[in-house]
């Protein structure tokens, strides 16, 4: 990933130059600078190795063994992985998060993009206020965001029941078996769209406005400017968001976990792969198989991101 050296974006051209020219003072000076560079990154490296490299290696190791009461720990090779990819519980959860990603990611990004374009266009006090409010959910813990929506969905506390009575229709219970998909869709969109909006908005603010004036002189309408100039110029920001959203959504955990107790059994212990892995590890102490499940999920995330980067490689995106 050498791309970091030259970020391919119109915004940062010339502004971001990570490379330091060779140190003055000849060979001895640069040897000293080597040492100093390592000195500055050393604390981070310790944490990185202790809490990322080591757990990852350990999980890889665990996933290759099985532990039986009578047999003790034995090498199992890829048996745990074979079991994972034929385990209906894992596959069921995986299918859910894939399906969910395909709907929620475009939805979030469209809401975020729409809001950002609107805020870039409309100025004034209302727009400033709107920007803060749309971003507000990011400052609210996911646990509490989910809980609040859970309350709003609830027939005993929430307004949905009352509003439905007003229109004389049956209130949909968004945490029921059939509706939980939509219930979660709303929670996730509400929670994250504002964060994505801020990233897109920041990218939009970085565009040189003289481009718009030139386009307007050529007779372009605002919509054309948005679609043909703004969106293409912020592709790197959009790609960044899509990758973040993909990684986050495939690891779906907190929202269903929190809504579980109030959803009357809709959220099963194998609802998403992550919930399944945690259940296996903490309730059944099956650390080996749980590690294999986590790794399998990690593998799926990796493949999904790789596919995404491959598909978007020619569009001037993040990783090209």
């Amino acid at each position, binding site marked *: 990933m050498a791309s970091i050296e030259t970020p391919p974006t119109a915004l940062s051209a010339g502004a971001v130059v990570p490379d330091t020219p060779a140190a003055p003072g000849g060979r001895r000076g640069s040897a000293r600078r080597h040492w100093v560079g390592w000195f500055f990154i050393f604390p981070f490296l310790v944490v990185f190795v202790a809490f990322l490299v080591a757990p990852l290696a350990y999980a890889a190791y665990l996933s290759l063994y099985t532990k039986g009461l009578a047999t003790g720990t034995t090498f199992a090779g890829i048996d745990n992985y074979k079991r994972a990819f034929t385990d209906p519980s894992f596959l069921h959860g995986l299918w859910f998060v894939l399906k969910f990603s395909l709907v929620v990611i475009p939805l979030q990004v469209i809401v975020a993009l729409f809001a950002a374009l609107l805020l870039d266009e409309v100025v004034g006090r209302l727009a400033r206020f709107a920007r803060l409010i749309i971003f507000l959910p990011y*400052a609210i*813990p996911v646990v509490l965001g989910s809980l609040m929506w859970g309350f709003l969905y609830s027939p005993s506390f929430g307004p949905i029941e009352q509003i439905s009575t007003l229109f004389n229709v049956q209130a949909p219970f968004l945490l029921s078996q059939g509706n939980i998909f939509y219930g979660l869709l709303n929670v996730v969109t*509400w929670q994250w769209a504002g964060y994505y909006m801020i990233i897109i908005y920041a990218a939009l603010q970085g565009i040189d406005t003289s481009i718009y004036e030139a386009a307007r002189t050529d007779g372009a309408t605002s919509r054309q400017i948005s679609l043909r100039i703004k969106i293409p110029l912020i592709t790197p920001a959009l790609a960044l968001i899509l990758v973040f959203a993909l990684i986050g959504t495939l690891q779906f955990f907190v929202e269903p976990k929190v809504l579980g107790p109030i959803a009357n059994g809709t959220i099963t212990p194998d609802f998403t792969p992550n919930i399944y892995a945690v259940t296996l590890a903490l309730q059944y102490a099956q650390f080996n198989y749980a590690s294999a499940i986590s790794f399998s999920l990690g593998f799926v995330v990796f493949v999904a991101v790789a596919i995404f980067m491959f598909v978007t490689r020619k569009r001037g995106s993040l990783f090209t």
Partner: protein
Amino acid sequence: MSETPRRIPRHIWGKLLLLALICYFLVPVWWLLVASTKNAEGLFSGSGALWFKGGFHFFENLHDLFAYNNGEFLTWLGNSVLYALTGGIGCTIISVLAGYGFAKFKFRGRNIVFAAVLGSVVVPLTSLVIPTFVMMTNIGLIDTIWAVILPSLLSPFAVYLMRVYAAASIPDELLDAARIDGAGELRTFFKVALPLMRPGVITVLLLSVVATWNNFFLPLVMLSTSKLYPLTVGITLWTTLASSNNGGGQSLWNLIIVGSLVSIIPLVIAFLTLQKYWRGGLAVGSLK
């Protein structure tokens, strides 16, 4: 940029759409505010969930919240503050040092290490939690504050953000000038580089404090003693209790609602007051 009359109607539509967005994003918070003023009776009585009624019981609820079960909510609040500050500040110090090191020193192995850091952003965080749990168990740190604080120190994204920020905000000439004047590397860092990186540092601090404050998965897995829980895990414990014994004893739902409100207030205030910093910081992140 003067507004031409022809553009005004379109802006009215724009403003109406903005109002609709504001309503959508504000509804849960508004509901929480309103519900926190109701007693159990008002909460369950059905109609009017989005408006005040049945008297103002906010302070009563607040009192009950801090009194319930020997004040366990206060303990959780304290734990959240402890984890967020130690984890957040520690993470910021580590990330700022590393970002500066990556940006301003061309040492052997830099690109490989940085590529590993960048690649690790893609590693599903949750796949680390289970092996970390087993490791923490093996070294006897499980169910202690360290099991939450130490893993919170890691943030590859913060390092990436600080590298970009340091590269963009510190001219090499300034560093070289300081060195020629005889300042040591640490002195150069503290006196020259750090002041220039301040907005970036504040952004990373805010983001990492928020990340630790909001964290749920890690403390949920690492802690089993409820005295060590942060707010997020504690409130979830209450919801599980409240939904399993419907109506039995004191209604926990009021406490959950007021507790949620109390838990979100500090961060909302932090975000509102430090806006100009994090907006600039996130802008840098999106530059890539």
